[in-house]
């Protein structure tokens, strides 16, 4: 059993046995490396992982996410990041180090229901994941269309080295911000382009498991452009 090819696996299925490292979504049982999830096995350089085909979003350090402000306390905002844990955005991240809970009003910058693009600074699961919106392309979202897809299909939407998303962006002139948590914001000056981009994303969401998806999406993008 030394196949390097990706295989479909279900929980409990032995992927490979021998001298390998068990990484994401796998565990070791003696010599055997077993999948713990439904997905595609991936063996590379002596390490084994499984790319999930189902399941929710679990925060990871440095992930880009799109979140919605749900409430705030004196020192921080709580952000729904489409996960079982709420994100925490400290007020000092927005107001700077001289933030004072007496003089600064959190709602003046971000109110309930506002959408933000944020990066996860710390996700160790012992407490709620810490977010930041200071950085390039981060911050409050002012315009665009919010689309939600299953978080396990985000890698498919991005494609190999971003091929899929680049194809959609160049065909529609849209600008798509993808959150690893399955939320994306699409902005486009041309309303037809916007609709086309949304349709392309929905097509990928529906048919993520189909082979030659890139061709199908390309076909769809070109057919409507006439």
């Amino acid at each position, binding site marked *: 059993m030394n196949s390097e090819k990706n295989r479909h696996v279900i*929980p*409990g299925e032995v992927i490979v046995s021998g001298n390998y490292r068990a990484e994401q979504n796998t565990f070791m*049982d003696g010599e055997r490396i077993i999948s713990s999830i439904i997905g595609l096995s991936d063996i590379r350089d002596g390490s084994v992982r499984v790319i999930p085909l189902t399941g*929710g979003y679990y925060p990871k350090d440095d992930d880009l996410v799109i979140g919605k402000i749900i409430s705030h306390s004196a020192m921080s905002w709580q952000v729904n990041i489409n996960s079982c*844990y709420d994100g925490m955005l400290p007020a000092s991240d927005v107001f700077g180090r001289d933030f004072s809970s007496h003089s600064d009003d959190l709602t003046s910058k971000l109110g309930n229901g506002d959408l933000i693009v944020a990066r996860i600074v710390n996700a160790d699961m012992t407490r709620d994941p810490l977010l930041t919106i200071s950085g390039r392309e981060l911050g409050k979202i002012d315009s665009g269309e919010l689309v939600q897809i299953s978080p396990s299909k985000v890698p498919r939407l991005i494609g190999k080295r971003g091929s899929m998303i680049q194809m959609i962006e160049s065909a529609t002139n849209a600008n798509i911000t993808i959150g690893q948590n399955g939320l994306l914001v699409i902005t486009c000056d041309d309303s037809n382009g916007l609709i086309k981009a949304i349709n392309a994303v929905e097509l990928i969401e529906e048919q993520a498991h*189909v*082979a030659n998806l890139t061709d199908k999406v390309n076909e769809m993008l070109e057919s409507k452009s006439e």
Partner: protein
Amino acid sequence: MGGRDTDIVLLDENGIRSDGRKINETRKVTIKAGVLKNANGSAYIEFGDNKILVGVYGPRDVHPKHMSDTNTGILRCRYHMTPFSVGERKNPAPSRREIEISKVIKEALEPAVILKQFPRTAVDVFMEVLQADGGTRCAALTGASVALADAGIPMRDLVAGCASGKAADTIILDVNNEEDQAGQADLPVGYMPNLEKITLLQLDGILTSEEYKECLKIGIDGCKQVYEIQKKALQDKYFATGGNNNG
């Protein structure tokens, strides 16, 4: 119970049981994964005349908060029989029996699920028996593990359930309602086939130690047959198109 004749022959001279099965044959099992839109994972299982719907929610916030564990996620199970699942109307309030089955199913699934990665959360499993015909705990356990896998909860293995027992002085596989009522023993088994570990073992009735060993052996064989159907249900949902390629 049920609509069938009560004084039936459990085993005839040809070794054929009341419902036409051989002694080491399970009932027809069909499983479909992903039948509920609003649940994170779900499954519908027909185990002979048992019909059970399972929904899995989570990992999600724990309510009430004091139940949460800062070191690990928790698993909560609810086994429930609908009022129309049996011949006479069943009171929908949880009975002693349902509380017991919820507990044993929870304990049968706990060795399989890996919730260490999700501290302070809960995974809720709801099993609703739509129609009961003996062996619902094994059927519910089987369906629940498919629904958990469908929800993307990390698991060490799927748990397959199947009962064996003794009726008309013969060891039989997959006890149905009549055999349970009129038979001599019932031994439900929950089993993880890849890890070769038993997670559920109960015995109602009296068996000699020889009979017990035989019973357990065929029970595990039954679980292995059920496992193949579980596996197929998941493959049908996730890998149906494109076959085993890099789709």
